[in-house]
């Protein structure tokens, strides 16, 4: 069963991101909301990948970020190509297309 991992804390907080990585199974997805969207900055995105790749999965994790939270924080210019932006509508669709969600905070 697929899990949507919802992360809402800034890169200042190492713990939620590390748990998200440790509980990640193949075919899961990660959604960055609220202050977790700061992980899409050019300096912090490599850190996030390093955390989430810890478990050496065969494929890279699928990462989404909430557009409303990105725009709010003034960081829409620098979203990495492999981060998919979703609106609240997409957020809902992600929760429906995964079997469950886990919120790391």
């Amino acid at each position, binding site marked *: *069963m697929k*899990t949507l991992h919802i992360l809402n804390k800034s890169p200042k907080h190492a*713990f939620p991101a590390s*748990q998200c990585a*440790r*509980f*990640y*199974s193949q075919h899961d997805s990660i959604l960055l909301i609220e202050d977790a969207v700061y992980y899409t900055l050019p300096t912090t995105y490599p850190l996030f990948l390093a955390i989430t790749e810890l*478990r050496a999965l065969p494929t890279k994790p699928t990462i989404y970020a909430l557009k409303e939270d990105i725009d709010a924080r003034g960081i829409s210019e620098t979203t990495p190509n492999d981060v998919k932006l979703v609106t609240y509508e997409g957020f809902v669709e992600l929760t429906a297309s995964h079997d*469950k*969600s*886990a*919120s*790391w*905070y």
Partner: protein
Amino acid sequence: MTPNTHKTLLVILSQSPYSSSLAREAVDYCLAAAAFEQNIQLLFIGDAVLQLLNDQQPANISQKNVAKTLSALPIYGIGNFFVDHEALVRYGLSDEQLCLPIRKVTPRQMADMLANATHTLNF
């Protein structure tokens, strides 16, 4: 509400005992779930392993003993306790310091527990 043994609810606890009321509110939720005969698993990760420490004496900071409350859970039929082994190591905790008999799990096992659960609640 009828008991449903096919569904498994994974309750993930990650907070220290006295940083907020979340530790106690998680226990309250588990007691309610047990009363309705839900199939629940409790998994202690991160700072939540500090909830398990035996010798807590919080009277002087006007708090209720979290370890004592946890120790009572088996009386209410709650028995599936799991703990993130790496979190125990991080804080240097050994079995005899813990208030509950508890099964240590690896990150791989934790990921499987989450994958197999019907729902999860993070406290």
